[in-house]
């Protein structure tokens, strides 16, 4: 069984982002970049399925400038077998990403696609669902448990109010939630070995997909700053303030 894992290079989740003064976006110059945390979980799950003998090959994909090869090498160091870089200078929306991935699914014919539930930069939570739609596959979003049994995958999903388990016919798309697993760290020998693993570069233009989105960003602003509050000395004072000043209880 072949597993495809699309991954994204994003700002490191510990970085406090700054909005550019001209409101055109977020300042990413000289900011630490990393694998999107949900993508790390997707790689980990694919590698575990391989280690459990359920999968034979794990292929990682990333779309973007040459810089994304750094994240693909990380994914290879974590246990992926080979990588595909779809090169473009454009910053794509989920639908365009899903269309490129759908073409790749056509070429690679994976049995399972595992991706993160959302990227922590755009916070969209769309790509997996859109890819499933375009390929006609079933989708197991927000997965906290994945079990593969003869031609089917059972996915336990984190939903509002609890958990839900669905069964999907393979091939299928699974998107990872935080509690699916604890991603491993890449060891130094594996980082060295990853440099020799195959990494294929394809031009995004060669897929015959219209990469233009109909959504444009008018402006990006910093959120309203909350007014600095006060420290109270005692519980009695707190209750008094809530009752008489804030009037919320």
């Amino acid at each position: 069984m072949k597993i495809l894992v699309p991954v994204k290079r994003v700002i490191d989740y510990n970085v406090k982002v700054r909005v550019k003064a001209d409101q055109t976006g977020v300042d990413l110059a000289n900011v630490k970049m990393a694998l999107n945390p949900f993508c790390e979980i997707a790689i980990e799950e694919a590698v575990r399925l391989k280690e459990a003998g359920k999968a034979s090959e794990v292929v990682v994909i990333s779309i973007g400038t040459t810089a994304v090869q750094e994240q693909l090498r990380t994914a290879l160091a974590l246990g992926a077998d080979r990588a595909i870089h779809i090169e473009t200078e454009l910053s794509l929306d989920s639908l365009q990403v899903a269309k490129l991935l759908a073409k790749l699914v056509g070429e690679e014919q994976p049995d399972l696609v595992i991706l993160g539930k959302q990227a922590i930069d755009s916070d969209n939570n769309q790509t997996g669902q859109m890819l499933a739609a375009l390929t006609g596959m079933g989708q197991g979003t927000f997965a906290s448990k994945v079990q593969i049994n003869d031609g089917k995958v059972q996915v336990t999903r984190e939903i509002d109010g609890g958990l839900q388990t669905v069964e999907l016919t393979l091939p299928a798309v699974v998107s990872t939630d935080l509690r699916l697993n604890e991603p491993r760290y890449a060891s130094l020998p594996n980082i060295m070995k990853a440099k020799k693993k195959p990494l294929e570069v394809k031009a995004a233009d060669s897929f015959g997909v219209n990469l233009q989105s109909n959504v444009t960003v008018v402006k990006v602003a910093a959120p309203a700053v909350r007014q600095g509050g006060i420290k109270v000395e005692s519980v009695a004072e707190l209750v008094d303030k809530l009752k008489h000043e804030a009037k919320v209880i």
Partner: protein
Amino acid sequence: MAILLIAEHNNQSLKSETHKVVQAASAIGGDITVLVAGLNCAAAANEAATIIGVSKVLLADNAAYEHQLAENIAGLVAELGANFSHILAPATTTGKNFLPRVAAMLDVAQISDVIAIESSDTFVRPIYAGNAIATVKSTDAIKVLTVRPAAFRAAQTGNSATVETVAAVHDAGVSKYISAELTKSERPELTAARVVISGGRGMQNGENFALLNGIADKLGAAIGASRAAVDAGFVPNDMQVGQTGKIVAPDLYIAVGISGAIQHLAGMKDSKVIVAINKDAEAPIFQIADYGLVADLFTVLPELEQLL
């Protein structure tokens, strides 16, 4: 403008998120049609017909829609939605699951987690865990949006729109519902509660969360948690407030033993009044709290319960 809004319900009654999305839809302007898709869900459809602003309710009652499987619901919504200018659903796990699938089927983008409507084609949404606010404009023929319920007031009831039955059955046949394990709770739902009290790693264990119960009872509050508390196994994950959990905006949010990581703040910083109780005076949560109390939560909580 013709707006199709997909109701959130449990086959018996509507969830309050639906009323909030109706409010958002009213800001776009135009006729609002609410789709209630499920099994034996006529009561929920009748309830939708009472929301002020709704002109029509479509009821799709079929076993294929019982568990809101994305593959089946998306087929239905994509078919019906082709005749509308806007398709809206709440940004809950249900909405987030099926709506992007609908958008891709209609070959249009989706705009996620809308917190404000500027006009019929311009919308405001948070990015980077709420650390930046993007205003985006869509020229797509059909605007597909998930709406953050916490950002809108609930539309009032007292209407009596017509309810029409939709016969279309979409069963993609690639997915099957197996089981569900829902957390039982007598308290208000997190996303709808007027007061939320949340515990973090500082609670130390799951048993100590009981210290929040008495306070929650007195305030009619829902109990939430930080990711640290969930990952440590103190409480189930559907109590998690944050970027990857629930987004809440209650009148009063009380953070107990929560340091205030940006991912947590993304889920609660639009609360009207924030109270932080933490023994670390340097905890980032104090930078956004209206009222901070630097003290040990184990002495504060019983005292607070008594004084309320």
